[in-house]
């Protein structure tokens, strides 16, 4: 593809001699090889997911047959109906949904407020607060598991939604930093105009700064949701009661008493990943934007 497209353009650059043009064509063969390798790499990357999905659509007996069936010979949804009706996955889904949505709402709300104050208001301790937020990147959150556990035990939050939710609020500082940067770039004239209209800080935040940054709020909310849904270590520690488990923990910790059933195990995993996969496919642009922002790159 690239060799066809770029040959005329290359020829136009400056009446190139035929030898030069041949050289460029040779280089484009190199480019073609690079493209082929990239495409093969992408197929290799996507294959495990494809293979997992196809396996869940097969009859269990066909799965353990020798030979590779890239498409189900006998198509069935048995694995999914079994997982949905015979395991606690429904309850786990609700637990995941409640905790992930709560983490998202709380993190975004708290961070937007703090980001606004740091960006727009003068108050004592502002610089110190900003430095503490930046320094928080040095604290590895998995190192805090012991003391987070002590904390939620003291508040009797073990095996509760709140116990899963609260320690995940430590993922807030990045969000504050991103909000601050976005609030910084709201034109000062708008603020001055609103001040003349006698708007107080709360009106300023809710009517001006937040609505002007809905895009980034959506992006941050989506990525926080994906992160919270995918959490493993903390929900795994904070809950031992099967009724209170998140779906990511439940499907790996509670196993069938009747031995390995490949389609069912994979089916439950696919169901666990489905919400984030759907969210990603719908909001692709926002997800990539938020990821680049949280790494410190403006996309």
């Amino acid at each position, binding site marked *: 593809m690239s060799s066809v497209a770029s040959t005329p353009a290359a020829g136009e650059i400056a009446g190139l001699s035929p030898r030069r043009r041949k050289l460029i064509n040779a280089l484009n063969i190199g480019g073609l090889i690079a493209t082929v390798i990239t495409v093969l790499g992408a197929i290799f*990357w996507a294959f495990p997911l494809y293979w997992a999905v196809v396996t869940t659509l097969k009859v269990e007996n066909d799965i353990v047959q020798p030979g590779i069936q890239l498409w189900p010979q006998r198509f069935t949804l048995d694995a999914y109906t079994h997982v949905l009706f015979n395991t606690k996955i429904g309850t786990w889904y609700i637990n995941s949904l409640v905790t992930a949505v709560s983490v998202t709402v709380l993190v975004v709300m708290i961070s937007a407020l703090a980001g606004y104050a740091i960006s727009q208001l003068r108050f004592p301790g502002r610089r110190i607060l900003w430095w503490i937020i930046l320094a928080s990147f040095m604290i590895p959150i998995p190192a805090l598991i012991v003391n987070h556990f002590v904390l939620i035990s003291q508040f009797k939050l073990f095996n509760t939604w709140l116990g899963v939710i609260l320690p995940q609020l430590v993922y807030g500082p990045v969000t504050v930093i991103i909000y601050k940067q976005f609030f910084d770039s709201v034109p000062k004239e708008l603020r001055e105009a609103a001040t003349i209209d006698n708007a107080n800080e709360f009106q300023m935040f809710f009517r001006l700064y937040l609505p002007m940054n809905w895009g980034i709020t959506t992006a941050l909310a989506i990525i926080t949701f994906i992160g919270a849904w995918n959490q493993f270590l903390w929900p795994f520690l904070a809950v031992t009661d099967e009724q209170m488990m998140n779906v990511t923990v439940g499907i790996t910790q509670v196993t069938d008493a009747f031995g390995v059933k490949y389609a069912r195990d994979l089916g439950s995993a696919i169901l666990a990943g489905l919400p984030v996969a759907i969210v990603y496919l719908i909001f692709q642009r926002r997800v990539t934007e938020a990821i680049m922002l949280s790494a410190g790159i403006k996309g």
Partner: protein
Amino acid sequence: MSAADIASDVPSKARKRRFNTREVLAALVFVLPFVLVYAVLFIYPTIQMILLSFQKAPLIGAGTWVGFDNYAKLFKDKLFGVAFWNTVYFVALTAVPSTLLALAIAIGINRLKGWVQSLILACFFIPYILPVSVVFRVWGWMFDSQFGILQPLIALVAGGNVPVFRTLPLFMPTVAFITIWWTIGFNILLFIAGLRNISPEIYEAASIDGTSKWRQFARITWPLIWPVTVLVLTIQLIAQFKIFDQVYLFGNGGRSDATMGLVQLIYRSAFQKNNGGYGATVAVVLFLVIVVFSVLQFQLLRARGGDNK
């Protein structure tokens, strides 16, 4: 995460200005929820962790002060040595390879155009947004010792099926490979953003001069993408040092000591052996390692004037 370029954002003259009471009150209300959450869930547990590391204490309940006993124990504890070197080994197997591979893939993707580019990028990126449990099941099935689709390939080399996750020398490299598969999308994304920031005119000028593709890469792409490379590499170093989920799941619920990493040792000491003091000590070690890498990242990024926006 690149603190370097945003650290200086708050102007210092703000300190000298008189404060407006109404503004300060409003600010207090705005920052209060964050400060509260931060103090209770970040600063307090960090201080408690450090204090706990000097105590002999159960997970829940009062402990007794033992000074540096726990730290002395680290050097005698074989398991700590295993956990530390396993973690270093895992970081070595993932951080640099996934950074370089991501750069190569990003260059490949960057050559493509339109929907083909989006599709190829999505193939590499989708694993990154999935929960670890999905990764665990998907690759558990790929490598399944009886029916795994990769076993015929393994049999070609080994002469028979190999239970990869129960074969110690293969465990870490395999989990590292799966981790790269899982997380490389993040690196690719950052590299593509970096590559797009390199002006195409530079390449046009170079191709008129007849510079070879390899020299273009060595003289233009590599130096200009270097700040992104540093960013990706240090993010990976920091992230992979915190390894737990995959190793724990593939290591059969962490029942094998031989595959233990540092976070898993925290978990083992505090939660399974009810030795909160020692768990906190291992946590402090992890904390110190991450602090060193964070400072390194900060310095490297600042030395190059932040990332190349």
